[in-house]
């Protein structure tokens, strides 16, 4: 979709006066059946996931996988050298499997370490970050999204998107400063 001046349209956006107004608007847009849309707020709004019709983040599954790989890494790293490659006898103590409690602290630490890395990197990858630019920054009002303003953005690539319907929906839900955001 293009504007008369020849720009590609990224989205139709509106500003809302408060978190409560944005929350109600999100429910309206959700019920209208839109899929490619988002809300922007300076802090995570409690209950907004339900209002947008989003399910629980599956990031936790990635973290579980990270934790398991950390545990296995530690187990391999400890048993391999200390029990098979070069059993290290210290103070005449045994090196068999039953010395495993002495391996627990490092197993624990690596489980945590790998899980934390998984959580950190999965958060970036699942959010499509880092990125140095985004069309939404073309809207000058948007710089307050990280300060005190609340926005709702319906993307043009949503199959249900038409300029009229999106504008009506944003107006009906109490949006202000309704505008078209250019792609470039």
């Amino acid at each position, binding site marked *: 979709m293009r504007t008369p001046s020849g720009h590609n349209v990224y989205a139709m956006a509106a500003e809302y*006066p*408060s*978190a*409560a*107004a*944005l929350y*109600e608007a999100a*429910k309206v847009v959700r019920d209208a059946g839109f899929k490619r849309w988002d*809300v*922007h*707020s*300076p*802090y*995570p*709004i*409690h*209950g*907004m996931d339900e*209002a*947008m019709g*989003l399910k629980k*983040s599956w*990031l*936790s599954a990635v*973290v579980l996988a990270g934790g398991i790989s950390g545990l296995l890494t530690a187990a391999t790293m*400890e048993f391999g*050298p200390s029990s098979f*490659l*070069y059993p*290290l006898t*210290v103070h005449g*103590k045994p090196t068999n499997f039953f010395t495993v409690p002495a*391996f627990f*602290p*490092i197993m*624990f*630490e690596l489980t*945590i*370490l790998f*899980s*934390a*890395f998984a*959580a*950190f990197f*999965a*958060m970036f990858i699942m*959010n499509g*970050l*880092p990125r*140095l*630019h*985004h069309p*939404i*920054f073309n809207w000058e009002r948007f*710089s307050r*999204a*990280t*300060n*005190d303003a609340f926005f709702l953005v319906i993307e043009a690539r949503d199959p249900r998107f038409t300029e009229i319907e999106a504008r009506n929906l944003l107006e009906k839900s*109490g949006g202000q400063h309704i505008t078209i955001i250019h792609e470039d």
Partner: protein
Amino acid sequence: MIKGKAATTVERPLARVPLVLNKRNFSWLTERISGVVENPAPRWWWVSFTITGTVAMFGMFCLGYQISTGVGTWGLNHPVGWAWDITNFVFWIGIGHAGTLISAILFLLHQKWRTSINRSAEAMTLFAVMCAAIFPGVHVGRAWMAWFMAPVPTYYGIWQNFRSPLMWDVFAVSTYFTVSVLFWYTGLIPDLATLRDRATSKIKKFLFGFFACGWRGSNRNWRHYEMAYLLLAGLATPLVLSVHSVVSFDFATSILPTWHTTIFPPYFVAGAIFGGFAMVLTLMLPARAMFKLHDIITPQHIDKMAKIILLTGSFVTYAYVMEFFTAWYSGNAYERFAFWNRVFGPYWWYWWVGMLFCNMLSPQLFWFRWCRRNVYVVYFVCMCVNAGMWFERFIIIVGGLHRDFLPSSWGLFIPTWVDIWTFIGTLGIFTSLFLLFIRFLPMIAMSEVKITLPEADPHYGSTNGQQPAAAGGKERM
């Protein structure tokens, strides 16, 4: 799903004191907190930074001298082979623990007041762990061989002894530092985006923009972000308890009287949080006064931190008393002697001043509300605890070593000027890093404090589902 009215959540039967005073709104918070970074540095900042930077330089010089000359520049000798160095290590690691307690454990416990202090407390954690890492790193003697601690076959294919508590310590401390950095940076991203959007110069815009990673406060992003934050908090919680437990294993797995005891892990963790909270207040009270953050770090916050100091101080007191009881009840002559020696031996005043007065008695002032609400009393107690926790570690370490099993092996520890100035130098490094932090990064987590405002609630001010509420916190039901 959310339907119908959940409208009157604002009216709580037991109204709480708001966490941000004077009905400040979102943009006031952004202005005030970003302003600390954006406005020119006040004169006191330059004065403080000059002093702490100079002290840090002394510390750097001592480290350079020690590394180039050898570990003999410290006063270590038989029988005291661990003294100020490991005392300082445990002291600094312990201080870090309060930051993780505030950022992770209090988060899991839904303590919203943590939002005013968690960012700076986490920064304090990082700087404290950096200072801690200096000491074992240098104490290995040939500091350039410190990489022998990494799990690689260093010498003729022989691997490290993974069953050694010192090896556990390497993993615990390095994991702790890494996870703390990840957690801290994750929390910083939305606030870096705020600074990016407010930046006036091109270079600031680029730098904040680069580190904010293109954050735009989208709810689809917040969804994964909150899950990552929750899980990092959930991971950091057992981690922080494990770190000081593992540090205590360095002592507890030995056979020395006063070291060989099962009470050490919880005792060390409680002591770490106790000392760490004192350091948080030591740093926050001046910063709060200098940057006029009284509406964000309120008397309520100080009151709650004082209560935690009282609580953990009581744990520590219990552990001190229990150690004496166990020594007496064990009937072991060496154990009994060691504790008698702690109170009446050559280091007697360390115990009377450090452990008894500073750690056991001074926090008792916090039973009184007036004391918890008076910043001067709070600061006095925090300084006592800071000093007391250092003395406690010295008593545990040197106290356990200086009277060996045979009187012929007895000796005392006398610190050299290198010992003393390395420790003072790390105080300088720590405070310099903290001063740089408050100049260049938002010292309060803006996006998290905003959640605690009443208008942050999506049901604030609305009686039926469709009516938008006024922004800015003026309407109160």
